[in-house]
């Protein structure tokens, strides 16, 4: 029995293999998308949240087309298992993201899960949600040592030049 070598090589493949097969992968991601639309901020394993991000953003792009569009309605019907969220998607989320051209979600890593598997977890949220803001990493903070030293140097040289 020859186990095909091509199944082990994954050059250029963009989809991760989650769950028990492609159908199960889509079901898992569908549950996550439904939860995101309902709660607007969820914690999930990082790999699943990363896969889900693309689908959530494309769903919002479809929703922006309007609920009269047949294809948009079929997509929303498939992707949202709780049917009251279809109304929320078209009436609340689509107008909220109308001015934005692209990224509607934010993915941030959180400490590993406490369970035995110690899985890498992430929190994914829709931008503009009404919950209290997350602690996002700010790169250029004024409080870092280097920035404080540079600020001091600039002030000293500025005072020197002024004199």
């Amino acid at each position: 029995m020859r186990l095909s070598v091509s199944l082990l090589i994954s050059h250029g493949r963009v989809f991760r293999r989650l769950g028990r097969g492609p159908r199960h992968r889509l079901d898992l991601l569908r549950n996550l998308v439904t939860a995101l639309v309902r709660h607007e901020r969820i914690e999930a394993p990082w790999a699943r949240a990363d896969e889900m991000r693309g689908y959530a953003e494309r769903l919002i792009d479809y929703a922006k087309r309007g609920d009269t569009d047949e294809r948009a309605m079929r997509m929303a019907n498939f992707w949202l298992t709780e049917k009251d969220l279809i109304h929320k998607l078209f009436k609340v989320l689509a107008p909220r993201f109308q001015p934005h051209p692209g990224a509607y979600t934010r993915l941030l890593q959180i400490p590993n899960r406490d369970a035995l598997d110690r899985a890498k977890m992430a929190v994914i949220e829709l931008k503009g949600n009404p919950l209290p803001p997350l602690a996002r990493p700010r790169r250029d903070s004024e409080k870092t040592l280097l920035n404080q030293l540079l600020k001091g140097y600039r002030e000293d040289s500025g005072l020197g030049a002024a004199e």
Partner: protein
Amino acid sequence: SRAGGDGKPEKFQPPPKPVIIDKQKQRAERRFLSPEFIPPRGRTDPLKYYMERKDMIQRRKVFNIPEFYVGHVLAVTTADPYANNKTNRFVGICIQRGGKGLGATFVLRNVIEDQGVEICYELYSPRIQAIEVLKLEKRLDDNLMYLRDALPEYSTFDVNMKPVSRLDHEEVPVNKLQVRMKPKPWSKRWERPKFNIKGIKFELPESKMKEAQKWSQPWLEFDMLREYDTSKIEEKIWKEVNEELKK
């Protein structure tokens, strides 16, 4: 008519103006961008496709590649050093158009003396001296590979066929022909939904058709990340190609 003593001359009525339908304008309205111009989705540098496009346009300025789809009957003359006239003419139905960029190919199939022959030509090869479209008709599918397992009468075309003249420049006609197949086994299981073939008249029993549906993947149409929307890319490339060709 001027009967009676009507002294005043009747007002001159000019004849109604003839309506001129400008065929040139109508022809320009129909857009066809050859599928090998559209770059595939991937991580390659777009510079590669830009350079290939320049070369493709350069070749098209010198040699006319007509608009054709899968299902058209074409006659291709290539340069052959070992033939009498140094040229080789092959007539066949286009069953597949593959490849992107300069390596774009099309496969022509014909049955000559009870032997099926398929030749894969490269569109931009300098050995090709002429491509003539003999019969314009689109089929129901994009890929007619199933003609290999169909009865040979569906793939035979007369080598000395005269080009069928088409005067309307509006729509390419779609031939809704349903092809009859040879008995199974076939080279591929064409009844499976993965191929999505509409142009075969399946004479298989219902049980076989139902068993084939077991391999259907209904979730695939809802998988949004597999969709590749080419409309904007096509617009840009269409403009670019047209501007270059006009020069």
